[in-house]
């Protein structure tokens, strides 16, 4: 599925990712943990194609296809989904409109006709029920005046509608109270599937109490310094990150 080999990336001349390699198999859930500033969000943004970052070395492929050659929208249509840490507000554009445009962009890419309105609404309502979301959501401006929890839930709704091959969820747990966290985790778990790979980027172990990862990686100083199973997350919770930083530097 996702193969990252010897990836280095910089922003404004400063290198953030150094020689990073990571493989995520089909149907697997990986958690990427690490201290602030370790390059977690950069990694997520580079995979999605944000052009603020210069990829200086390495490769990123999805089922063998070179992602780095594609524009962000092409990656999205190919099934790469990024759940944003800070979903942006788009005043006046209603949620349903963006969702429908996104679904149709993907369908057009696959040579399918546009989804009709009734089919779209049926699908959206189904997914919203799954996430315990109020239908009023559809008619609100995109993220406009949403609470932190609503924004994150909206990201999961988009993911549910788009059914990506690869979903990267960047700090999806940040700023959520326990109820919102449970709701979001429930949504993500519902979307786990043998055909879908999920990468959870998180600072805290708490999210992993609700979404059990198959693998846990620790990112520090722009590279992966340790990988393990979910017990690694528990170990980090107890010991913090410093011992790993030292190990990496040593």
């Amino acid at each position, binding site marked *: 599925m996702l193969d990252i080999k010897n990836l280095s990336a910089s922003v404004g001349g400063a290198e953030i990712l150094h020689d990073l390699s990571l493989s995520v198999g089909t149907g697997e859930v990986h958690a990427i943990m690490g201290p602030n500033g370790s390059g977690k969000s950069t990694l997520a943004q580079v995979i*999605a194609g944000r052009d*603020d970052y210069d990829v200086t070395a390495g490769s990123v492929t999805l089922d063998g296809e070179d992602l780095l050659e594609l524009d*962000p929208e092409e990656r999205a249509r190919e099934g790469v989904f990024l759940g944003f840490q800070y979903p*942006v507000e*788009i005043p006046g554009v209603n949620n349903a409109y963006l969702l429908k*445009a996104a679904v149709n*962009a993907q369908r057009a890419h696959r040579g399918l006709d546009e989804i009709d309105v009734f089919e779209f609404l049926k699908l959206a309502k189904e997914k919203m029920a799954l996430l315990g979301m109020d239908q009023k959501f559809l008619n609100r401006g995109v993220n406009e005046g949403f609470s932190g929890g609503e924004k994150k839930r909206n990201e999961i709704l988009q993911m549910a509608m788009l059914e990506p091959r690869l979903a990267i969820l960047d700090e999806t747990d940040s700023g959520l109270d326990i109820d919102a966290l449970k709701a979001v985790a429930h949504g993500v778990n519902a979307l786990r599937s043998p055909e879908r790979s999920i990468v959870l980027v998180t600072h805290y172990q708490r999210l992993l109490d609700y979404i059990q990862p198959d693998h846990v990686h620790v990112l520090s100083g722009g590279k992966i310094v340790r990988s393990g199973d979910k017990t690694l997350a528990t170990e980090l919770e107890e010991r913090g990150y410093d011992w790993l930083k030292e190990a990496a530097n040593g």
Partner: protein
Amino acid sequence: MATESEELESLVNRRYEHGFVTDIEMDTLPPGLNEDVIRAISARKNEPEFMLEWRLRAFRMWLEMREPNWAHVHYPPIDFDAISYFAAPKSDADRPKSLDEVDPKLLETYDKLGIPLHERARLAGVAVDAVFDSVSVATTFKEKLSEAGVIFCSFSEAVENHPELVKKYLGSVVPQRDNYYAALNSAVFSDGSFVYVPKGVRCPMELSTYFRINSANTGQFERTLIIADEGSYVSYLEGCTAPMRDENQLHAAVVELVAMKDAEIKYSTVQNWYPGDEEGKGGIYNFVTKRGDCRGANSKISWTQVETGSAITWKYPSCILRGDNSVGEFYSVAVANNFQQADTGTKMIHIGKNTSSTIVSKGISAGKAQNAYRGLVKVMPQAAGARNHTQCDSLLIGKECGAHTFPYMEIKNQGAKIEHEATTSKISADQLFYCRQRGLSEEDAVNMIVNGFCKEVFNELPMEFAVEAQALLNVSLEGAVG
């Protein structure tokens, strides 16, 4: 980041699609302006004496006036003697009685614009009074309107058939000496539209006129007069496109609206005149005076405009809230791209008691364009209980454009409630990336964000025109990104 803004700049740059010239012989006066020219215009239109006198008075006033220079726009001086003041299709003398009699070349022109008259009229149920250059060549749905007692015709026809109405209302909202361009228009106006809706009548359809400037170097001086008598309602749409030209073309129209007691006029404009090329060459100068008079109690006038064209726009659709409890509204989207300059806004003059006005202005600037909102809210001493809410939002695309807001307030009644909100924002790289990550192209993302920004104004347009306006906006901003 640098590439992002370069891309933003280039999205606005799609060529003007409606740039072509219809090859029809024109009956055109030689360039220049003097009393003889005015007499010639009046004679060609077989006008009664009072009209000629009215024009001549205006011309004499104009001679003593000066071109205004307070607007936030820059252009080389206009040589008014280099302009021809009358152009009409040759076939004017025997004007067609129905669409079948219309010169097929004219119809072809409308087809190129995507507004096939008959089809449009049939599908949309819209009566179209098509103004080709200066003279109306086709009017449809007249019968249905006359059944309701609504008069909808060219200005020339109104002068001929309803001189008493013209005499009573012409210049009663925008006097001849109101401003330089209004005086010029009063002297030389060639044609335009006339609407009269009698007492208690709700006009059975949207009235619509398509204007089109066609003859090279011919100033366009349209005159529109709409009167809604007591308790009546009318919705009017004005839409424009013009062919590509190298020389600047002057357009100085005057629109007068009169709403009597309990009457309502909704006036919507979608304006798409040639804005000039990427270097700012050519393009229409649009110096327009539009004003509505809420003459009776409980009357309402609502202006909605979507301005995407013209090299220079100088336009302030206004409301005089004379009647008690009268309501004035102004909803505007103004797009300025490349080297376009727009100075537009409104004036709300509160005279009657408990009058209220709403101003929603959305300015979009891209390329090297300058976009200014200029608005006046004036509350007279006798206007007890007056209320105004003004909202001015500016959206910038790229780094070289500008947005300016000039709100003026003259409040002479202590009890007035006046609110003003203003915002300036940019299409952020975050918004674009967010949309692209969801699979939208950069261009679709910009269109979506811009349309969201304009939503409050589009909501005010009649449904079918809102769709058109949205499409027009997308075309206008194509090339601004990507």
